[in-house]
């Protein structure tokens, strides 16, 4: 990989910005186009770019597969947990208004923020899980590709 000097330098420069852009898309999703799904894909793309340039092993040591597995479940829990919290507060499943009974619209805001964070975590982890799964396949048939 040492020969791709330009790729290495440019991607090293870009990766942090891609990750930050993911969070911009995430948090600006309330006001403009965006949200958890798109942000998750962009965040995963930054890791995938890292894996493409510096190798799968380097990416796996930066973001270990065990984290990815954990993140998938955590994302769903964050989403579902928000719903369970609204249940405990006496509302319908995912009725965020119960978070702040005085200002239902504030509750909606907090609720959607939590849920979208769950989506971000789940989507980014699943993207990486799929990439790791395909990337880690042992090459058994050298003649076939």
């Amino acid at each position, binding site marked *: 990989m040492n020969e791709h000097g330009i790729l290495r330098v440019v991607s090293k420069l870009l990766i942090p910005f891609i990750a930050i852009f993911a969070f911009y898309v995430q948090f600006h999703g309330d006001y403009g186009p965006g949200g958890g799904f798109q942000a998750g894909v962009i965040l995963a793309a930054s890791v995938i770019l890292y894996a493409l340039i510096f190798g799968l092993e380097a990416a796996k040591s930066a973001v270990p597969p065990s984290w990815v*597995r*954990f993140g*998938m*479940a955590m994302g*769903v*829990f964050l989403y*579902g947990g928000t*719903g*369970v919290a609204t*249940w405990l507060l006496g*509302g*319908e*499943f*995912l*009725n*965020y*208004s119960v978070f702040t009974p005085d200002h239902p619209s504030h509750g909606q805001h907090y609720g959607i923020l939590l849920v979208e964070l769950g989506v971000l975590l789940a989507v980014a982890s699943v993207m990486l899980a799929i990439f790791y799964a395909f990337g880690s396949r042992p090459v058994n048939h050298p003649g076939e590709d």
Partner: protein
Amino acid sequence: MDILSLLPPWLLTHGVALLVVLPLLAGAAMAVIPRERIAWTITFMVMLICMLCALTLALQVIDQGRLSYKMGGWEPPYGIEYVVDALSAPVLLLISAMAVICLFYASPSVKAEVEPKKRAAFYGAFLICAAGLLGMVVTGDAFNVFVFLEVSSISTYVLVAMGHSRDRRALRAAYDYLILGSIGATFFVIGIGFLYMETGTLNMADMSNILDGLDGGSRVAQVGFAFIVIGLGLKLAMFPLHMWLPGAYAHAPSFVTIFLASTATKAALYLLLRFAFTIFDLSFDYVVTILSQFVLVLAVVGMVFASIQAIFQTDVRRVLAFSSIAQVGYILLGLSFLTLSGLTASYVHLINHAFIKGGLFLAVGAMWYRFGITRVADFRGLSKTMPWTMSAFTISGLSLIGVPLTAGFVSKLQLATAAWERGYGWAVGVILFSSILALVYIGRILRVAYFETPPQINGVEVLKNEAPLIMLIPMWILAILSIVIGINAGWVVDAAGRAAELLIPTQMIGRGL
């Protein structure tokens, strides 16, 4: 209802959502739980709670009629509405009860058939599949149906593929199912898209009202209906669209086969009833034409052709799989009469067939567990080597044929009566003929099991080696249930009758005849 007043009020209000949320979250939890034992326990507890929840809902529906739940507190038709009524409550109970019965059986069977590392994840996929099936039935939102259809389908592909450590062909079967299932789901969602385009709503009740106002003249809705029938036809294995089913049933782990055979096609059949009779209804000429001509012909051809194919299979699970396609034909036949008695018969058979086929696949799975049996020829002397398992198989088998005093007889009698009332004397003949074919393919297995001696290994007969108790209990529950329904079918027929009345309201009776 006295029982209802004993239950916590929270459950009565939120049980509808709990039914779907609980298995879905527990399914995600399985991704981080490495221990098989804990995974099984959690899965079992979750499905048990779901079953109690479904039971509560069924009682509530009898008590109060239609239940509606506003997801996220948004009023329907703007938000997603979950609905339980006389049509969906029995199916919900069926799915969750079958899941609990299968899970008893799962712990030895999964140990034998799935790789150790994947067992916790296997239970996770199962929970998500169950959540998808329950969600499909409980939701009152047309697009939400598609989402849950995909949730259940994708986890089913995974479950079928998990059979690969027992039988490599499971991978091929799962891939076939993936391709055909995705085509089915695509057709279905195109249909939903057309309906959304025409009505501007996704709420089923709202959609139905708006479609009624269109006076049957909407070409877009007509095309949408055709897409939905084909898409669901693929999912429920309507005759020429059944190609995925035999492979998937024959090569999946036995636990998966049992669960799928008794619930997955049933949930899709439920959706067909829901779409054809409550969203669309019999006031549309094209609905009448498609159901009473197109579906009728496919049902009859499927009943005869799939039964004949079942006779020529060497693998027992393929025999039963082709039989399932024939039984779907029976259910579709009842539906195509467009009468109350026809729909009642169809719904009764939907429930009975789940119990019957579940019982048969349970017995076959136990036989594989003990002796590695998959072919009909291997059944030699099983009445002596596995007497309890074989007698459970026999009872469910007789029920499948439709011998009096079994559940199969009840549903076939209902269906034949409905055919006669409709003026389809020939259909009674087809039902009889198809039952004779069932007698041949089940009788062929029974003959080998009862009249041939057990195989000999080194000159010594194979000794009696009964299935473990934990496998015998679920298969006998289903076998006894078959007889109970055969003797007193009142409760099943009543439930089916209530569902049929919902599907054909009084002002629609006699339409399309």
